């Protein structure tokens, strides 16, 4: 029996190996017989592996129409000279690794990108660096793509019309793992995308959002970090979105937030951290969202929940150090708050069951006033406001009566350690690229 197993193993290994080496492997670029990369790409057969020699190439727009592996040696720069799109992929089963792609052109009617993938499937992009391109990586009408370990740095400061870092439009089953996106309009952008995952990415200092979802259902994003973006993360007009273990921080501004949930339903926001945001979560028109085990720390507002939201469950979260815990714009409230920890809670636990004996009302009178008259923020922390809030706590008259936590926790909830990221177990086949600005000088 064991021999049989061994035989199968050896045969299958041989078969796999055979299928891998079916294509040729050859070099192109500087110092080879194929100095023009496009010529080499046209000569290659499906299944071939093409390796580009070290060098700085200004060869316009390169098209990949066949199933090939397109690899780079160290320091291969593909330069679009601010005129062209750089790589355009229209063939299935393409693998692109290790390139530095820079300086795409800009057009008003066409979205030019560093790497564009059009109407195809099974694409792997790994270990690439995209610098100073209008759109970084652009996927349109694609399925089953893996983007791993790419670095994208845009130039939004000089050109406010810069596009998105990773832009995905009309796609299914896309995996975006361990990428970094910065200096673009939106770090990662999803429109009409389904069944996709976004794991372990770092999206920071983008003009608008770190991540932007529109009409994209049944997607998951976990273990990402969104820092110092214009307005945080926007999840809009979607359902069945899972948001786990992300960190949203330092999104400051008059209309900024950690997450904007606009017309979202049947989704989960769990195990996330919201720190130093103007508003941790801003919700509008959102229903049936489960919000559990998140920590809201040092935000202006932890949660801004508009009256158009119903049937949301906000349980077992920690609210600490926020200027306002919850604010709303209506009298009626149809959401469920329970078992949260609120550092502003002042009740006692005389029966020692771990829960406060009286309900906590997280909406302060002053936060209602600010909702209607933003300039009144000037008066915050004044004695008058303190008195008003105290009076309202004792005899609630203006704040929503039903918005309360019946069983507030007395102690801060200890969450289990954020589980180890999924992608850290994945192997890295080539070198790990770092954003290195000296490439730009060559």
């Amino acid at each position: 029996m064991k021999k049989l197993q061994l035989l199968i193993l050896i045969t299958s290994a041989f078969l796999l190996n055979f299928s891998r080496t079916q294509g040729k492997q050859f070099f192109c670029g500087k110092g080879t017989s194929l100095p023009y990369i496009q010529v080499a790409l046209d000569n290659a057969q499906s299944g071939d592996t093409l390796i580009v020699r070290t060098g700085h190439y200004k060869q316009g727009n390169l098209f990949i129409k066949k199933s090939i592996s397109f690899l780079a040696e160290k320091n291969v720069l593909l330069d679009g000279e601010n005129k062209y799109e750089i790589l355009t992929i229209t063939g299935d089963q393409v693998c692109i690794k290790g390139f530095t792609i820079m300086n795409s052109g800009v057009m008003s009617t066409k979205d030019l990108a560093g790497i564009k993938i059009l109407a195809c499937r099974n694409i792997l992009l790994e270990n690439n660096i995209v610098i100073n391109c209008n759109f970084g990586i652009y996927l349109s009408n694609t399925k089953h793509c893996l983007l791993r370990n790419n670095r994208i740095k845009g130039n939004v400061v000089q050109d406010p019309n810069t596009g998105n870092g990773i832009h995905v439009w009309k796609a299914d089953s896309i995996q975006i793992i361990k990428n970094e996106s910065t200096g673009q309009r939106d770090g990662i952008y999803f429109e009409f995308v389904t069944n996709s995952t976004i794991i372990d990415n770092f999206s920071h200092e983008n003009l608008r959002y770190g991540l932007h979802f529109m009409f994209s259902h049944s997607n998951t994003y976990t273990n990402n970090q969104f820092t110092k973006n214009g307005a945080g993360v926007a999840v809009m007009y979607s359902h069945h979105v899972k948001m786990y273990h992300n960190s949203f921080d330092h999104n400051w501004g008059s209309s900024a937030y950690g997450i904007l949930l606009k017309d979202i339903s049947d989704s989960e926001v769990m195990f996330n951290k919201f720190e130093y945001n103007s508003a941790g979560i801003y919700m509008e028109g959102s229903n049936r969202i489960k919000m559990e085990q998140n920590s809201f720390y040092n935000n202006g507002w932890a949660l801004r929940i508009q009256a158009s939201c119903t049937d949301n469950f906000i349980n077992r979260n920690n609210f600490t150090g926020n200027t306002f815990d919850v604010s709303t714009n209506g009298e009626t409230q149809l959401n469920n708050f329970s078992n949260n920890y609120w550092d502003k809670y002042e009740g006692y636990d005389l029966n020692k069951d771990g829960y406060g004996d009286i309900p906590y009302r997280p909406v302060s009178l002053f936060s209602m006033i600010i909702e209607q008259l933003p300039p009144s923020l000037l008066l915050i922390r004044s004695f008058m406001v303190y008195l008003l809030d105290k009076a309202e706590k004792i005899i609630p008259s203006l704040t929503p009566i039903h918005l309360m936590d019946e069983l507030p926790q007395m102690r801060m909830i200890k969450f289990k350690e954020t589980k180890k990221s999924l992608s850290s177990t994945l192997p890295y086949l080539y070198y790990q690229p770092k954003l290195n600005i000296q490439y730009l000088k060559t």
Partner: protein
Amino acid sequence: MKPITRILIALSSLSMIATYYVPLWQIQLWAPQYPEGLNMKIWHNHLGGAFDIINGLNHYIGMRLIKDEMFPEFAYIGILIGIYIALGLITSISGKINLLKAFVVTGVLYGVAALYDFYRWGYDYGHNLDPHAAIQVPGMSYQPPVIGYKNLLNFTAYSGPDIGGWIIIAASIVATFLLVYELLIDRKRKKAELHMTGKIALVVLASTFISSCSAQGPSPIQFGKDECTHCKMTLTDQKFGAEIITTTNKVYKYDDVNCLVNYLKAYPDVEKKVKTIYIVDYSNAGNFIPVTEALLLYSEEIRSPMGSAIAAFSTIQDRDAIQNQLSLSETLTWEKVKTSY
């Protein structure tokens, strides 16, 4: 009486003639779904404003229909105002201080009577509810505030004088000031102070005629800062965007034209107050064109922020330059766009 007193009394009496042509009182309601507010006006002989919409809403909580027949007062409010004006004019012509006293007292009595009458109506209207109403909140009554603000369920209600009411109030205040002024003259007080009183009265009178309306063009979009009123997205793409300015000079900004159309559909009370709609010029980033003058172009290849795929141009040359770069496109009229979402 001094000539200045007689002239001012005459002026303020005559100014009250305007109250026959403007509303006297207003009741406003705000709620998240009516950001512009619902405004009901009470004239000297009829109701105006959005009382039909208010009726539609109130019907759910069992309140009666508001209609002109509900106010028998409409029959004689006009006559009462007429008497007041006449009294003022007689005072001015005769110049008797006792008549001035009568004029002031009548004004105060009118005010008290009007407020009491309004309270009585509001109490009856807010408490007499249909027991078969669709929404019933035990123990809840919906009496509108007599004057000032009040929260009723998720509505904020405001009640207060409108232009006509303010004119009458101003006239009464002027008359009161003048009476004090005349009485002070009788006691031969310092003249300097008295002139001040007269001046203040003049200012009060004048200020009722000056309204603070000012003409306004489009308000520029701050890209990267402003957010779309409808979808809440931050506006970043300078080739797209739209703006509404309402008759109350409120500004609403949108990142894409379909957001604007959908917003107007969701908020009919804003739609009623639209003064101008502007749209961003695709070829001149950030510049506005009134939407009625804009040349609109639709193409799947135009990637607008919310997917309307519509670009706007101010000149035919600009539009043709872009249209030539597109493989498939279609020109649209604003009327068509308005109805297509």
